[in-house]
């Protein structure tokens, strides 16, 4: 019995080693990576917001791999996918021999692995609009594109100022900003609390967040709380996927039972769909413009 299990273990070991020998990462390593590129830096980014920023400051050609959630700009569709928040593919990341890797703040294991491999990790922290600007400047510094990053920040700031100017002096309606719910029902509604870039965007766009007192980025209020706060406008922002553009009218109608809400009574329920609305990257100014147009048509 013992001998048999020893044999089994030995067999398994051989199989495991064999599998290791033909793993894709090794295969990649044996192939010589193109070195002759004019850019010295090779960047991988697992974070969609950072990928967008890199392309926006002109570091796009240096990006050699992106995360599983990345959709924008269209160029990313041709790049290798390296996993994302929960499933970073460390082998594949290492095999691309990046000089800089943008990862999520919670990926501490990955960070130490990268550092051991001599790869600089840029750790992304999620935050408000100031964090977006700071991240852009830091990425500019890290990729020797400080001036482009500064230009991008200035450009975004002026667009934000323009949005502010457009809504200045107008009465601020009470807005419920819905981030997620079960499609087709009013179940599991998550809304923006008083923290984070979505809340800040809402304020810039001339709305008053009805859950500004909840010190969280997103929270699940009870229906009762929504009724009691009586928003004048309901704005839902969804990335493509869960909600389809074709079902917008049906999704608006879901709110009908809460007819005492001014937003429902006055037909001010808006379901907006687009990834740019929810990614804290360089397209956030466009999102703020959309929000402002929605709240103050």
């Amino acid at each position, binding site marked *: 019995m013992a001998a048999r299990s020893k044999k089994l273990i030995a067999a398994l070991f051989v199989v495991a080693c064999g599998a290791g020998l033909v793993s894709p990462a090794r295969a990649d390593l044996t192939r010589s990576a193109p070195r002759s590129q004019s850019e010295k830096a090779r960047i991988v980014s697992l974070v969609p917001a950072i990928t967008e920023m890199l392309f926006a400051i002109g570091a796009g050609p240096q990006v050699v791999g992106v995360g*599983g*959630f990345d959709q924008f700009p269209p160029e990313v569709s041709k790049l290798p996918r390296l996993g*994302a*928040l*929960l*499933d970073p593919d460390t082998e594949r990341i290492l095999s691309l021999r990046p000089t800089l890797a943008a990862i999520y703040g919670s990926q501490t294991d990955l960070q130490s692995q990268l550092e051991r491999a001599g790869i600089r990790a840029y750790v992304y922290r999620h935050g408000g609009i100031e964090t977006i600007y700071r991240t852009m400047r830091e990425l500019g510094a890290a990729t020797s594109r400080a001036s482009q990053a500064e230009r991008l920040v200035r450009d975004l700031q002026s667009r934000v100022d323009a949005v502010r100017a457009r809504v200045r002096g107008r009465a601020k309606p009470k807005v419920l900003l819905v981030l*997620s719910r*079960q*499609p*087709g*029902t*009013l*179940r*599991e509604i998550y809304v923006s609390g008083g923290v984070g870039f979505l809340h800040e965007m809402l304020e810039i766009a001339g709305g008053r967040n009805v*859950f500004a007192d*909840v010190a*969280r980025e997103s*929270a*699940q*209020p*009870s*229906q*009762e*709380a*929504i*009724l*009691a*706060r*009586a928003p004048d406008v309901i704005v839902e922002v969804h*990335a493509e*996927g*869960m909600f389809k553009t074709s079902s917008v009218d049906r999704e608006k109608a879901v709110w009908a*039972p*809460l*007819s*005492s809400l001014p937003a429902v*009574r006055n037909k001010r329920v808006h379901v907006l769909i687009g990834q740019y609305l929810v990614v804290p990257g360089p397209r956030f100014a466009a999102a703020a413009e959309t929000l402002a147009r929605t709240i103050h048509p």
Partner: protein
Amino acid sequence: MSDAVALERAAPIRPIRTRLAITVVGFGALALAAIVLAPVVGSTRISLARAFDRSIPFADNVDAQIFFVARLPRVLSGALVGAALAAAGVVFQALLRNPLATPFTLGVSAGASLGAMLVLIFGISIGFGPFSAVPLASFAGAAIATGIVYRLATPYRRAMSTAVLLLAGVTLNSFFSALIMFVQYIADFAQAYRASRWLMGDLDVGSYQPIIAAVPLVAIAFGMFAMLPAALNVLSLGPDAAATRGVDVVRAQRLAFFSASLATSAAVSLAGPIGFVGIVVPHLVRLMVGVDHRIVLPASALFGAAFLVACDLGARTLLAPVELPVGVLTAMVGGPFFLWLLVRKS
């Protein structure tokens, strides 16, 4: 054997009809009080007079909307789900002759959860009429799990083996849980979060429609429960002992298995797998009224309703205006309370 001794000790001093009447009136009053009082209380102060004032158009009446749209559906679904899970717990514990059995032991809820996950994550829209996609898929998942476990545990025309039933159920549970983890893992972050939120249970069912869809199922299950208690008393002594006392074991087991599975499926597809109600409530009730299933079953259903309605009241008020998942609260309240009762009794 210990069950038999306990049964002897709990032998009625008063005739069973009287005891049943007392229990139903007592626990019924508790459940009724919970159902009547819970919609009155909430994170917002409302005027009941205004809520019931027919002269104000419903569309303009916030108090009425908070009462009838936000609170009442939750209270009703809480009562329905609490009663169904607690009663199913009693039946499963008797059928499996295992005090640790819950409505979720045999994989019914894991099947339901897998169905719900598939819809939530792949965005499959299979809803029709009054049935929306998630409850429909979770009910289908529960039915499939029930069917698999039943087939595995039932040799042709012979009594179910409770050991096989238990093992098949537990294995199926793990298997479905693995599939659930897999599906969640390949989903994107927002979807995975929504899926895990579903697993915490939620009585904010959004409207009356899902409740109306679940009521007939629970009613059928309770109709079957009504035929069970005497058989459960004997079944809990074991199939052989039951057979010698003239119980049609095969029929009784089948009835118990399918009724409890049906109640569980309906409850889980309505509100997600709310834990702890199905194990704590039956034991609490037994500590209060003894072990005779003729008393325990109706008492558990009524107490389960009251318990879950009370927990949900906490869920929607404690962190107001933010929700607390009710499944978190049932476990946090039920666990220590149960332990306290256990220690005090012994």
